[in-house]
């Protein structure tokens, strides 16, 4: 949801990652059986839950399953008696699909949280929707969350929907891997009592552990029984949209955040609409708000789908008709594997064809964001431009477009830009397409951004999350997204933090224009793969942890002038060492406050007193010293300085030459004898 307004209950937002928010969802839903099996990127959700269980904060039976297949089997078995749930991703989900059929078939309302991640070969650990698409026919209800708050809310609403007597089906809440699961942002955690009032305790319909009425699940049914059973199952899933709306409305009344089947962002009357699901929409929202009402831009809107299975075809069709949409571009992070369109586009196309017939808007499909590829703002500018071409009736492709493929761009002026084979196929379309400049005006930068280059294991994420928490406590909206992959300790990783002061509208997309760049290690300066000045605003700040390089020397290494970058240094390693801390991240946190004043240091300290890692006093001291010892003057060198500055003429001194040439003499050279 994009509106950040206080719930009726004064609930203070806490900093949570997407995974932790989902874990809170399970906790608040009082799930009673939580088997788990680790798989990136959803692991930390299960880790959080097992910490709570072992600390006695959550009354749940956890099972250390030996595979996702067993974990799913366990929630389906337990789901017959108690509320059960688990979290998984990618390949794990694929293992589960084999047994999830039984859950839907046996109408077990267990819950899943999926950290969406690419599936299949080649192996890729970053986010896209291919795992969610793989399970779409397993009979499980599928909800998509766009950020951590929605992940938490959707898990709670998931159980409410799934356990509804007219449904009784398993559900899954999807959140994009890393950009969603590992992004840290402010999340309001509802009070358990409130949630209990919204989600009643689990009531098994046909409990196994019933002394008087034993039951049999999973009987073998022949055709006659089987088709009737399946028909009932389909009937149950078709009830879901209505239940979702009811649950979403009640959630809004109770917690101040209403949910529906989808979210319409932008103009009421929108000729050009982009439909998509999940976290990547954050960049789209920024572009939509930027384009609304601009000259030469017909109404634009973003259709953020929440309920994917069952697909609310009628409601979507009606919404598009109401908005008078002429062109619809469906952006999705999954593949069509030979189908007409990838799943979302195919469902939308079918829906609007059936429900709107002739005056259905034109539909084009765009694939992007695969395997963690970045979904940037200019992608949406491109797609709105494409929609504009569709609306004008220009020819367009009847197969998916691709983002960020050099030889297959959306718009191409000449043959040279594209692969010859493609020109042969789509040359005509390209020729008739028009790239309109009004879509590509640069967006305003109303957020400030900080990038940290550090080495894995240096604790950069902990410090960025601490900073985010402090910022939120001061009333701002912050988002921290670490970018890491299968790096081992020591490799260079980045952690980006976005600060939105005005907090009017939640912004979750980066402009990649850094106000502050922080180096946790001065050797990163000389790393060929990293240009630390790239993206740094003119006159931006470069904060370096070093005790041997002076500011002037760093500028010299970077070949940057004083006006290009203001360089600050802090001997963080020495500070940490002095305090016996194994990490220098706390000192760097203090230093960040020195160079970036937007988050006042004193107010932040009150937050840090409660949230710094152990040992607390040493960490707080490190923050203080980091703050004080940041300087842009010469870095004091601790090494034993040479006392006498050796001047050149000292070095050039040589014994005096006394040869005869220097003075007149009457000497004559003669040889005797």
């Amino acid at each position, binding site marked *: 949801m994009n509106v950040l307004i206080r719930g009726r209950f004064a609930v203070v937002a806490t900093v949570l990652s997407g995974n932790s928010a989902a874990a809170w969802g399970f906790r608040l839903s009082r799930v009673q059986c939580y088997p788990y099996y680790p798989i990136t990127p959803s692991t930390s959700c299960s880790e959080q839950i097992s910490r709570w269980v072992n600390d006695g904060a959550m009354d749940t*039976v956890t099972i250390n399953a030996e595979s996702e297949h*067993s974990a799913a089997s366990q929630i389906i078995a337990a789901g*017959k008696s108690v509320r059960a749930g688990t979290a998984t991703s990618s390949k794990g989900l694929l293992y589960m699909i084999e047994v999830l059929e039984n859950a839907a078939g046996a109408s077990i309302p267990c819950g899943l949280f999926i950290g969406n991640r690419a599936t299949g070969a080649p192996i890729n650990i970053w986010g896209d929707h291919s795992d969610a698409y793989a399970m779409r026919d397993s009979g499980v209800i599928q909800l998509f969350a766009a950020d951590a708050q929605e992940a938490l809310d959707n898990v709670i609403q998931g159980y409410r929907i799934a356990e509804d007597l007219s449904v009784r089906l398993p559900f899954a809440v999807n959140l994009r891997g890393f950009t969603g699961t590992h992004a840290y942002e402010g999340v309001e955690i509802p009070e358990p009592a409130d949630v209990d009032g919204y989600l009643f305790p689990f009531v098994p319909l046909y409990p196994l552990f019933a002394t008087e009425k034993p039951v049999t699940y999973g009987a*073998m049914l022949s055709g006659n029984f089987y088709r009737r059973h399946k028909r009932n199952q389909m009937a149950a899933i078709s009830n879901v949209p209505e239940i979702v709306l009811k649950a979403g409305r009640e959630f809004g009344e109770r917690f101040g955040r209403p949910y529906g089947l989808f979210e319409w962002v932008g103009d009421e009357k929108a000729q050009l609409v982009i439909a998509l699901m999940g976290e990547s929409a954050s960049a789209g929202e920024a572009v939509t708000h930027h384009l609304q009402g601009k000259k030469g831009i017909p109404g634009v809107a973003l259709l953020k789908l929440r309920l994917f299975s069952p697909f609310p075809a009628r409601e979507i069709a009606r919404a598009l008709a109401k908005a008078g949409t002429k062109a619809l571009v469906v952006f999705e992070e999954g593949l069509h594997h030979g189908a007409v369109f990838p799943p979302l586009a195919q469902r939308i196309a079918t829906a609007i064809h059936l429900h709107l017939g002739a005056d259905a808007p034109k539909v084009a499909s765009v694939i992007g964001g695969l395997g963690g590829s970045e979904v940037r703002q200019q992608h949406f500018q491109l797609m709105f431009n494409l929609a504009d071409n569709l609306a004008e009736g220009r020819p367009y492709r009847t197969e998916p477009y691709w983002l960020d493929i050099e030889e297959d761009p959306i718009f191409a002026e000449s043959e040279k830009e594209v692969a010859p084979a493609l020109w042969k196929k789509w040359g005509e379309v390209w020729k008739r397409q028009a790239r309109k400049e009004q879509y590509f005006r640069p967006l305003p930068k109303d957020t400030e951004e900080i990038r940290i280059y550090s080495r894995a294991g240096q604790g950069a994420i902990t410090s960025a999350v601490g900073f985010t928490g402090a910022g939120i406590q001061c009333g701002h909206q912050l988002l921290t997204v670490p970018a890491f992959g299968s790096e081992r300790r020591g490799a260079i990783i980045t952690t980006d933090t976005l600060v939105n002061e005005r907090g009017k509208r939640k912004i979750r997309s980066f402009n990649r224009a850094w106000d502050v760049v922080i180096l946790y290690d001065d050797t990163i300066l000389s790393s060929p793969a990293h240009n630390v000045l790239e993206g740094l605003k003119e006159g931006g700040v470069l904060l370096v942890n070093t005790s041997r390089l002076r500011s002037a020397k760093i500028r010299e290494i970077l070949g940057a002038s004083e006006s290009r970058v203001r360089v600050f240094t802090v001997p963080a390693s020495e500070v940490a060492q002095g305090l016996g801390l194994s990490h220098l991240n706390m000192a760097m946190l203090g230093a960040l406050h020195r160079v970036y004043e937007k988050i006042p240091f004193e107010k932040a300290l009150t937050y840090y007193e409660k949230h710094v890692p152990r040992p607390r006093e040493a960490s707080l001291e490190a923050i203080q010293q980091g703050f004080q010892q940041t300087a842009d003057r010469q870095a004091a060198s601790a090494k034993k300085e040479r006392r006498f500055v050796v001047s050149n003429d000292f070095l050039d001194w040589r014994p005096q030459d006394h040869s005869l040439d220097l003075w007149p003499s009457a000497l004559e050279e003669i040889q005797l004898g």
Partner: protein
Amino acid sequence: MYNVLYNRHIGPSPHSFLLPEPVVDVGDYGAILTTGLTSGHQGCTGCGMVSGTNQVLRALKLTGKHVVASIGTGCNEVITTQNTSCWGDVSVDHNNFPNTGATLSGNIAALNALARAGALSKDAFVNVGMAGDGGTYDIGLQALLTWIARGEDGIYVCLNNQAYMNTGIQGSGATPYGTHTTTTPFGKVIRGNQRTPQYLPDLALAAGASYVATACPVRHRDLMIKVQKAAAIEGPCVVEIYSVCPEGWKSETDVFHEITELALQTRSWVLFEAERDRKSNTVLFTLNHVPQEYVGVMEYLKLQERFSGMTEFSEMVERAQEIIESRWSFWKPVLEANGINGGDRAHDL
């Protein structure tokens, strides 16, 4: 690893050092009051598995607990839960083929959760997992062994008819050496099943089971004692039941008893049980039956068509006999302690 301890006593024994008092011993011929499966299952005539299931459920009834069965796909499931048929007063949760162990684990967790929530008392119920030899030795082994390794309290019964019978007699992990099956045919070059079975009791003990036993429906007294013990003993217990399958073994449907007796006499099936004392990490092995005189394996093979090819080849029969002797050599200490050496004098206590 664990220390091996031999019980001098040979024969079924209701006593166990893990239990405060012995279990109910129905004796040889007493009337068995309880009922097992409701009538109307669709098993083949002469099917040993159904009688095995029946006796297990009767034994569990003796313990006075309600049974919740997590069963895996296989003959036992298919023939007992067709459309609306069920197991009588036993709740059945058939989940899938490879995850009997996992389903069992899920139900045990549910029981714990409910007990923790005060909805019911834990010892009113007993969780039992049942699967065939394919669902136990092959596709379900991972779920089973990790269930045992987690030390969850319940029983796992394997109805071993030594092949995938439900899908038309394909070779499984439990198929004996030399057996003809559709996937291990007795060809001209490769004569029948080349593998020797991997023996579930050894795996279960290695995985940390508290109690392991082998049984056969013909010795119903011994079987029911063992099932009761398995129910009473804390921790994961595994019972493997010899299930005659005329269809798969290509034998007459009325030789159920003769085949089982010959199996015992030729020692190709050995009745024993093993109880683990976790503190001292020792396992007490008790031999429950010694044949009066050792009969050559040929007698056993002759009754079943699946071995017909093998009986022509003396070296294969010798190989089968070797397998039996090597397994039987494990009991040498018990036999010597009881003065039994070879086939001269055997007694069945």
